[in-house]
């Protein structure tokens, strides 16, 4: 083919300028991937220190103030610098135009500015480390107004990151509306794109609210505004309402793209059409919609009225419905499939298992009576990590492996990748399952010290993080050392559009915009046999 003469997107231009000023969505996606990867590692190191601190009650390696700074650093970096922009900005950027049959996103320059804003936000965030915040990632008032730490700078950093998130969301939505290839109707759109669409809606509609909240918090510290200050007639709980009006939908900003990834990987390695395409697609939108109505479940013990609590509890249960629809559809996709346990598939299967645990324990917390007991305990920490690591990070790792040949044009060693997977999977459960038990026994979250009877569980949990660490280093080392030789265009015999071009793709993706004539997931049907 003549395409072999054309340079692929990785070779097309060398040096800093060719990357930093590129408007190629694939390069921008790769830059996001590197950036979030770095922040992920920094935040993960903070978490290893936190866990090591808990090897013994009382001071082990750091003092109490450093501990507060460390968990704030871990939480806020993981949330705002890794997981919110994470999958959507990196794989979203790389994949959406390829999947819908477009040459780029609709606003390529805006895309680059979004990335710069992300870097600017991250930079401001880093500057704040000169007087690091100790508020936790939630910046709850009144403490965030009173503490001597540099809250203004860190929240302004988050504000700028929010701007980046909004612009990326707008870009993706308009791209999917306007640039789908001929024949790429909405009911043929890959499910990753549906998930990215729902994510983008949340980014566009929820982020401005945290924007004004953080502006008001800054105004409170700087100009003495009284919104959240009881001395001036304000109400600190209002901050919580505002904050969670964004931050609960943000949970779905984090998880929806990972659900999209799993929806892509399942049919490829089960060699079956995805079961319930429309149900999964609409479930993404339903999750996005309902997620706006459940924020109050973070405040069951804040003195909210009982009626409000009950309403929020019921709606919280409702969000489990579309989520469960997705899980059952994935399981049904596997049923009687010809399952190939590739690394990406293993991560996807682990996603279903761990995410189900995370989701179901979420219902414990959504139940009013149980939440009073479990609120602000390690049970919440464990639930959240089962969703965020077991869900999002496992989905992210699945994507790293699945699209590795497309992104880098090389193959990786499946065997080593599987060993890394096993270590991460076991380590994760060893680290976080004991935290469910600790939580039910009454171990509060964010505490530096703990009662001696918790020590054995804490130690098990800490050992678990070490296993994850070893697995993660192995995974990274393996991915950094690709196998010799060029990756084929379509190593998994996948039917979606991003596999129809060379690996890695040329700068302009498609020589000619393709025309789509069939649904995306026609595995095991006549089309595939004909190929």
């Amino acid at each position, binding site marked *: 083919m003549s395409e072999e003469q054309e340079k692929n997107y990785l070779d*097309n*231009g060398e040096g800093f*300028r*060719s990357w930093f*000023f*590129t*408007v*190629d*969505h694939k390069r921008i996606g790769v830059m996001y991937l590197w950036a979030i990867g770095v922040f992920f590692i920094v935040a993960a190191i903070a978490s290893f220190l936190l866990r090591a601190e808990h090897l013994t009650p009382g001071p082990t390696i750091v003092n109490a103030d450093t501990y507060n700074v460390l968990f704030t650093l871990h939480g806020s970096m993981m949330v705002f610098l890794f997981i919110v922009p994470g999958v959507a900005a990196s794989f979203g950027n790389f994949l959406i135009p390829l999947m819908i049959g*477009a*040459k*780029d996103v*609709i*606003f*390529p*320059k*805006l895309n680059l*500015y979004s990335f710069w*804003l992300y870097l600017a936000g991250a930079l401001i965030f880093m500057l704040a480390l000169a007087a690091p915040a100790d508020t936790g990632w939630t910046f709850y008032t009144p403490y965030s107004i009173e503490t001597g730490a540099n809250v203004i700078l860190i929240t302004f950093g988050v504000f700028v990151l929010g701007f980046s998130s*909004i*612009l990326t*969301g*707008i*870009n993706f*939505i*308009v791209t999917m*509306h*306007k*640039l789908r290839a001929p024949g790429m109707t909405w009911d043929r759109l890959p499910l990753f794109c549906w998930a990215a669409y729902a994510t983008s809606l949340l980014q*566009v*509609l*929820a*982020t*401005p*609210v945290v*924007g*004004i*909240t953080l*502006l*008001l918090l800054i*105004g409170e510290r700087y*100009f*003495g*505004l*009284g*919104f959240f200050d009881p001395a*001036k*007639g*304000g*109400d600190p709980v*209002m901050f919580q309402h*505002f904050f969670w009006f964004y931050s609960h939908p943000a949970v779905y900003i984090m998880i929806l793209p990972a659900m999209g990834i799993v929806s892509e990987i399942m049919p490829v390695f089960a060699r079956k059409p995805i079961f319930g395409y429309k149900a999964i697609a609409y479930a993404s939108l339903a999750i996005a919609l309902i997620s706006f109505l459940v924020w109050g479940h973070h405040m069951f013990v804040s003195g909210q009225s009982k009626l409000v609590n009950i309403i929020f509890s019921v709606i919280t249960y409702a969000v489990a419905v579309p989520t469960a629809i997705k899980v059952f559809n994935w399981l049904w996709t596997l049923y009687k499939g010809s399952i190939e346990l590739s690394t990406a598939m293993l991560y996807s299967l682990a996603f279903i298992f761990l995410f189900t645990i995370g989701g179901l324990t979420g219902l414990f917390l959504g139940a009013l009576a149980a939440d009073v007991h479990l609120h602000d305990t390690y049970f919440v920490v464990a639930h959240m990590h089962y969703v965020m690591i077991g869900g999002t990070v496992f989905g992210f790792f699945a994507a790293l492996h699945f699209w590795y040949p497309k992104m880098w044009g090389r193959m990786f060693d499946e065997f080593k990748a599987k060993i890394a997977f096993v270590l991460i999977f076991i380590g994760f459960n060893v680290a976080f399952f004991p935290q469910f038990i600790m939580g039910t026994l009454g171990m509060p979250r964010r505490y530096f010290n703990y009662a001696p009877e918790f020590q054995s569980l804490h130690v098990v949990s800490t050992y678990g993080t070490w296993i994850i660490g070893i697995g993660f280093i192995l995974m990274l080392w393996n991915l950094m050392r690709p196998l010799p030789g060029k990756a084929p265009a379509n190593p998994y015999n996948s039917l979606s559009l991003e596999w129809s071009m060379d690996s890695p793709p040329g*700068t*302009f993706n498609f020589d000619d915009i393709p025309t789509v004539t069939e649904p995306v997931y026609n595995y095991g049907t006549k089309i595939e046999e004909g190929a």
Partner: protein
Amino acid sequence: MGIFGITSKLIKSIAYPSEMVPSIEEDDGHHHFDAVTEHEGAKLGMWLFLATELLLFGGLFAAYAIYRAKYPEMFMQGSKSLDVVLGSVNTVILIFSSLTVAIAVKAIQENRIKLVKIMLWVTIICAAIFAVNKYFEYTYKFGKGIFPGTDIFYSIYFAATGVHMLHVFIGMAVLGVLLRKVYKGKYSKDNYTAIEIGGLYWHLVDLIWIYLFPLLYLVG
């Protein structure tokens, strides 16, 4: 580059997808999308952006509703202390500027470049007068010892009008950039998307004020 620089670049980048090629090395001059897609895409993008702006102010409106229900007396008193005359003048000025920017959009579609220039100038001048009036209002309040932290009403007053003022400045920057490009002859009846979506942004600035004015000045 500063907030104005970013904003003007942002508006430009929404407005000109056609200038964009996926690599700085390989500017082959081919547009990826046809002009209609560009125009529609830019408009959809701007409307989505306006939705985010509404939600940004939505937080302030929610706070207003809650605290007004909680402290009706304070809001009556506070509202009475605001300068209704100056507020009304500013309202008229902003509504008028919305008209002039709308005329500018219509004019560029008919290729009447001179009219576009006049109308954009008038819009920017209106925005400047609005800002000057606001400056006098603020300093008058400060002189009377009223500050953002005085009570909840003034917290909302200063936060809401302050954030709105910021949008007026951003709007002026956007219109200024557009005006400069009109002088450079960049726009015509075949290429007016930027002016149209810049105008949309300015209408939003006006619209927010139309809600802020009665809520703050007229409830007393």
